[in-house]
């Protein structure tokens, strides 16, 4: 093999490989992406036909007060609300620590044809304000954020805000 052929072979091989890698990445992205919605966004997407029952998604909002019910069969029912819309959620398993009524939650699972949501994972990951970040942001956008600026009092007010507290590293 001449030097030129050798280089061509290596370059073509690399390109073919690159194409395969890109294909793999795109395929994996298509199949494993999970969208995050609040109940209001979900009903909007449903109306637009952009989400259909059976789709895997993350639903975030507040656990409606007084909505958590434990059945004898071990299935837990609760309502996720963003105060504009509600979605009933069923979940079989142990709820995470810090799951509380009136506080933020993210449920991952599938939407059912009857409009309820069957979660297989319930996350209550949050900072000290008991609110998952996505939920807090959505609530702020909708003008429903009520926790006020407690942190602005005290010495902090005179300095740049502290770095993110939700990062654990």
């Amino acid at each position, binding site marked *: *093999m001449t*030097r030129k052929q*050798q280089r061509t*072979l*290596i370059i073509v*091989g*690399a390109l073919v*490989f*690159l194409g395969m*890698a890109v294909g*793999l*990445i795109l395929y*994996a*992205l298509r*199949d*494993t*992406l*999970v*969208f*995050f919605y609040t109940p209001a966004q979900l009903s909007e997407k449903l109306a637009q036909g952009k989400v259909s029952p059976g789709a895997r998604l*993350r639903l975030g909002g507040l656990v409606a007060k007084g909505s958590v019910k*434990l059945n004898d069969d071990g299935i837990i029912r609760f309502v996720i609300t963003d105060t504009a819309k509600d979605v009933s959620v069923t979940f079989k*398993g*142990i*709820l*995470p*620590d*810090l*799951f509380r009524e009136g506080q933020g939650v993210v449920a991952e699972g599938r939407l059912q044809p009857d409009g309820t949501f069957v979660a297989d994972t319930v996350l209550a990951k949050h*900072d*000290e304000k008991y609110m998952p*970040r*996505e939920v807090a*942001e959505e609530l702020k*956008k909708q003008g429903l954020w009520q926790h006020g600026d407690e942190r602005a009092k*005290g*010495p*902090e007010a*005179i*300095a*740049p*805000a*502290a*770095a*993110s*507290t*939700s*990062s*654990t*590293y």
Partner: protein
Amino acid sequence: MIIELGHFALVLALAVALYQTVVPLYGAHRNDARLMALAVPAAFVQFLLVSFAFAALVHAYVHSDFSVLNVWQNSHSAKPFIYKITGTWANHEGSMLLWVFILSLFTLAVAAFSGNLPLSLKARVLGVQGSISSAFLLYIVTVSSPFVRIPPDRVPLEGQGMNPLLQDPALAMHPPMLYAGYVGFSVAFAFAIAALMEGRVDSAWGRWVRPWTLAAWTFLTAGIALGSWWAYYELGWGGWWFWDPVENASFMPWLAGTALLHSAIVVEKRNALKTWTVLLALIAFSFSLIGTFLVRSGVLSSVHAFAVDPERGTFILAILAFFIGGSLFLYAIRANTLKIEGRFDPISREGALLLNNVLLSAATAAVFIGTLFPLIYEAVTGGGKITVGAPYFNLTFGTLIIPLLVILPVGPLLPWKRGNVKAVLGRLKGALVLTVLAFALSLTLLDASVRAAFGIALGVWVVAGALEEWAGRVMLFRAPLKVVFKRIASMPGSMWAMTLAHAGLGVVVLGIVMSTAWKQERITALQPGGKVQIAGFEVVYKGTRKATGPNYLAEQGLFEIYRDGRKVAEEISEKRTFLGRRGMPTTEVALMHYALGDLYIAIGDQTKMGRTVRVYFQPMIQLLWFGALLMVFGGFIGLLDRRFRVGVAERTESRLVAQPAE
């Protein structure tokens, strides 16, 4: 007073860093030996100044000086002494200072240990190091100073406390190790930029870059392993890797650095793959920068974090754009000046190392895209949120890494220039037999799924392949024992490093596959006296009691563990709530190590049905940490290699033909 002196020292250090950038680079450009020689004293002075500033901040932490804003925000007087020290870098501002401190340490090391480097190359390397230092110091001094004071009339009596999750020995060492890895790649980066400026890369360049890359890689490996170990026993979810963006941020430079480690060998031994290696050096450090900043700026969790802190955000973007964009631009215009030499067949040691590089690069790209895709999506759609989770990473990364593990034992046995796979497989007969045996035994005796059996076989293949290569090298069973011992004693450090690191990787694979395939978990709510059966153990929950620690309150869940009706252990799993304003509780896992794996108990909240208890059995998970330890140990042995220290001055090598298989 000390704080003000520290601040002042940092500003001086910035001036010195700028000097260290401009003067030697200009000197190298003008070929003025006097100006170039000034790089070394500048590096030394800068190190002293940065050390002083860093020590001043540590001092403030140790003495709980709450008149310093940064100390007040992140410390508490009741914290144990060790966490007062480590609290210094458990926050954004302090960790940036630690970063610069480690950078100045590496710069000093380059200045001290490269007496044999040509003067112009040395001046340029130190100049580039100085420019990195300048950018970071400017960032700290202008928008991220840890030395801000609280006005005297408002000084609080008590601090807000450190994030309790971080009050842990492994995590105390995690950031310094990680940063030593990130910063270590800056040396390779500086060498690459210097080479582009000089328009010359030769085998000597490869030899100079290798030990620095290896040092960075070793630290980074240790840092990632510590972080993963911490996540395992501290987060209480029984996992050790979550494909979290924060983890990926440290994994990307590791992957790129591993590729660099291997391609630099080809540069040194064969004077080939030069432009590619230079590019990899630039990429490895770029990922280090991205990793540092993305984690520390909070951008990874949301692009909104940028809007919260626009000054820092913009500054960070500017630094990233300057170093990544600038270096790639320089590469684009100068790379063609590096002469391409060294021919090789696709089937050869070079070919195998190239394939290693291609696979590692593709894996890095897959992790990169998966990590940043949610951010890009959010930015493009104006707030739409998506998650790219473990399924994506397992599919892409897994698919790319399997062929890498398959070729791993073959590569080191292939000769340079042209090889023959059949001949190599002949030398791996033992490993092949063991691999097939492992596959068959896992399927039949251990009742593994086909996937798990395949994974175990792959791990065995890598370990056995590494050992068989070593055995062949020392002529085990082929030469008299005396000769074997002599060959073992004279085996160079870099060869030990390869054997240990490759075998360690195989052990890690075994740990991952076994702990994933046979993991058992029971998540349930228990009343006192309640029992859980798992992996032949019976875990009895005795109840919960309250306890107090030095700076926390704890609920202790008491457990008794029985095996075959006999009590084998009494264990406590705690939930701790720390003093200060960070009210987030942390979990202390009850962890018992047995020959076949770990029994892992974590308590959760009290519910109507009882106390939430998570019990896991993690089979052979110890292999994961042991394998990582082997890799780190291998890295350190490699650093001791004589060739990296002695005879560095020889620029040409005629040993290529004399040494057939290394």
